């Protein structure tokens, strides 16, 4: 990877947080999804973040972040006895998604705060660069 500027660092971090917010949106949208088997039940998604070190700046401390993978939650889907439900299996059970709405909301808040932090870094860097350009005028 080529050398990273502060704009690249913040932009990549913002993309990573964006992936996280998308995952939260998808999880929340599917919080009430019901299926007729444990295998097809919706499982909450979580992005995995990893530090990105640019090759030429190794050891300098400059690094960005990217969402390298999306993992599915290993919590078992909720099994509910509801024989009257149209999706119930032969034994009368339905399977609800394993999304924990509280956890998702907390995650969403954290992602949004960190997105804001990166915007703040970007705005500060931009204003300093603009001031530097007009030195001596």
């Amino acid at each position, binding site marked *: 990877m080529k050398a990273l500027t502060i704009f690249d660092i913040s932009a990549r971090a913002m993309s990573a947080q964006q992936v996280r917010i998308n995952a939260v949106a998808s999880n929340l949208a599917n919080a009430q999804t019901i299926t007729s088997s444990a295998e097809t039940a919706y499982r909450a998604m979580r992005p995995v973040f990893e*530090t990105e070190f640019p090759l030429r700046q190794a050891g300098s401390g*400059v690094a*960005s972040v990217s969402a390298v993978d999306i993992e599915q939650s290993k919590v078992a889907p909720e099994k509910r006895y509801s024989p009257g439900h149209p999706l119930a299996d032969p034994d009368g059970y339905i399977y609800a998604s394993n999304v924990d709405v509280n956890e998702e909301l907390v995650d969403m808040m954290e992602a949004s705060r960190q997105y804001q932090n*990166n915007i703040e*870094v970007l705005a500060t860097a931009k204003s300093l660069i603009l001031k530097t350009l007009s030195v001596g005028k």
Partner: protein
Amino acid sequence: MLDQHLAPHANALSIRNKRMEILGANIANAATPNYKARDIDFSQAFQQAMGTSGNMLTTNAKHIGSLGAQGPESRYRLPLSASLDGNTVELHVEQLQFAENATRYEASLQFLSDRLRGMRTALRGE
């Protein structure tokens, strides 16, 4: 002579810029498992840049310069309380340092600008 007149502030700006990148990287990695926050020691980096300490002279092509010649050295920050996922970024610390660094960058910029203005006034002789 001109170089000497401007060098301290020019060097300070370049180190502040480097430090801003590193602190920006820390903030970017606030949620990355196992990321260790880094920082550079400004006064040490400044002395190195001004050639008042650390740098070994290279008088022959086969000499290997000291590491300091490649730019300021970054070190790991000692966290007050590291999180369970191995991440040592403490957002409040990073934000504080970032704000301080930005302010000091602006101060250096102002000093540099004033020196340039002073020279221009001297040249014009008004």
